[in-house]
């Protein structure tokens, strides 16, 4: 061991900075700050309009405080039924299509051409926001829940296939290697070494997507894709904030119930 009692060790230490060159570091930080200041300065706020809007906001909140479930109950019921049907069917169909695409989009198990095609499908599905897809499908299939169902199925593919593929890429490879060493074929490796590792997450993600699809179903209704969103939109257009409040409350309750249920199921499949 080397010991040098004459030279004392330094008593200060600081963490090495993330960006080593000092001038670059300060330029980047300063630039970001300057951009933020300019960006905030460029936002135009019409304060008189804000003042007028406060009044409407108060009416909305007042309506929210006394929700009216009864006068539009029939419409709410029909919309809710449509939304729930749309949610469940689109999630099931979306998940079923996502699984093969997700497997194909995992670089560690799919050959390159399959990988490229599956990644392209995922990218296509992810690059369009649900509303835009819904507008397209409404134009293709007309108003109503069919367009909503198509939209949500399409969006589910991008979401689930991507996350499934990433989970497959993160598996413990030694388990796959061990199964391969037994002389198993590709499909056997998928079902014996990969499926058990990704199943809990797949179930969790599917339930999460069910939740998202329900919330989305209430949004895409606004552009004509049916469901509770359409009912909500009508209520808003008629300034019936009390009915709108009732609809929002029901949506919140259903989302909460879904959340609780999915947490329970996820713990159970772990």
């Amino acid at each position, binding site marked *: 061991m080397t010991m040098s009692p004459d030279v004392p060790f330094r008593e200060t230490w600081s963490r090495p900075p993330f960006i080593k060159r000092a001038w670059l570091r300060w330029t980047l930080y300063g630039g970001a700050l300057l951009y933020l200041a300019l960006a905030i300065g460029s936002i135009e706020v019409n304060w008189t309009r804000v003042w007028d809007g406060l009044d409407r906001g108060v009416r909305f909140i007042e309506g929210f405080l006394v929700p009216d479930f009864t006068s539009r109950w029939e419409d709410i019921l029909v919309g809710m039924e449509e939304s729930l049907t749309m949610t469940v069917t689109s999630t099931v169909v979306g998940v079923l299509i996502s699984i093969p695409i997700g497997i194909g989009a995992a670089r*560690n*198990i*799919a*050959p*390159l051409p399959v990988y490229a095609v599956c990644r392209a499908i995922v990218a296509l599905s992810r690059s369009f926001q649900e509303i835009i897809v819904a507008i397209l499908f409404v134009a293709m299939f007309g108003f109503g829940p069919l367009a909503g169902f198509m939209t949500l199925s399409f969006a589910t593919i991008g979401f689930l296939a991507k996350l499934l593929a990433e989970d497959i890429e993160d598996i*413990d*490879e*030694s*388990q*796959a*290697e*061990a*199964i*391969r*060493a*037994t*002389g*198993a*074929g*590709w*499909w*056997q*490796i998928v*079902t*014996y*070494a990969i499926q*058990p*590792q990704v*199943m*809990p997450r797949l179930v969790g993600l599917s339930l999460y997507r069910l939740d998202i699809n329900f919330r989305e179903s209430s949004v895409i209704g606004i552009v004509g894709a049916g469901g509770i969103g359409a009912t909500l939109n009508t209520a808003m257009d008629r300034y019936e904030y009390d009915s709108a409040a009732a609809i929002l409350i029901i949506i919140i309750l259903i989302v909460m119930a879904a959340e609780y249920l999915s947490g329970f199921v996820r713990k159970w499949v772990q």
Partner: protein
Amino acid sequence: MLRLTNLSKVYATGDRALTDVSFTVEPGQVVGLIGPSGAGKSTLIRCINRLVEPTSGQVHLGDMEITGMRRHGLRRARRRIGMIFQEYALVERLTVMENVLSGQLGYVGFWRSFFRKFPPEAVANAYRLLDRVGLSAHVDKRADALSGGQRQRVGIARALAQNPDLLLIDEPTASLDPKTSRQIMRLIVEICDERGLPAIINIHDVALAQQFVRRIIGLQSGHVVFDGSPDGLDAEVLTKIYGEEDWSATIRKTDDDVDEDLADEGEPAGVVQETEAARRERMAGLT
């Protein structure tokens, strides 16, 4: 009988892992493969069942030439070669029985394996093997519920469920305590004796190797630098394999209570590189 002829491996990164490795393993013979980390031990056993593709040379098992085989033939060859791993490599979320039966995957079609409908004699054999390794009480447990020693026993049963002609064993005791390590080594050697199975065991622990195997091959930078009886491992040979060090405590004592802690001191550079390259290539074989 296993015969390696001039086996060499150069990874895509340019790292030379094995150079002209040749040796023969007779039926029933258990060979301990020792050498420093990065010497190519892991690459060598994976070149035998081509989880890693050798660059040149031949591997013969019985009358099969494994190195010349195409996809389908290779699967048939692999099912005759059982493999046991360092971190057990069990499928954690499957039951003990499913893990053992997965040794039969090379013999059974996809749908039968998917629905877990294995042939009755395979199931009976799996029960027999679990009894042999002392795990009859844990058949329906999930693999991740077992202790390290128990998991390695499942690993052994899985390898035997293949009805192998050869066992490749990669650091079977590296994650186990000294007592469990000895039990596992004893079990492996006993089973090889019972079945007349040849085996190659990669092993870090020189003392453990000396205690259980009758032939040792020393690997250093991809070259075979020693091949002989454990009694031949003197300070000079150990220095040739591992480099300069005080070997007096490691050289075989007459009693069994040999000093343990030789491992994990000063890993040579290049270790990480080699295992990373190996890992990438192993997975690449899946596609």
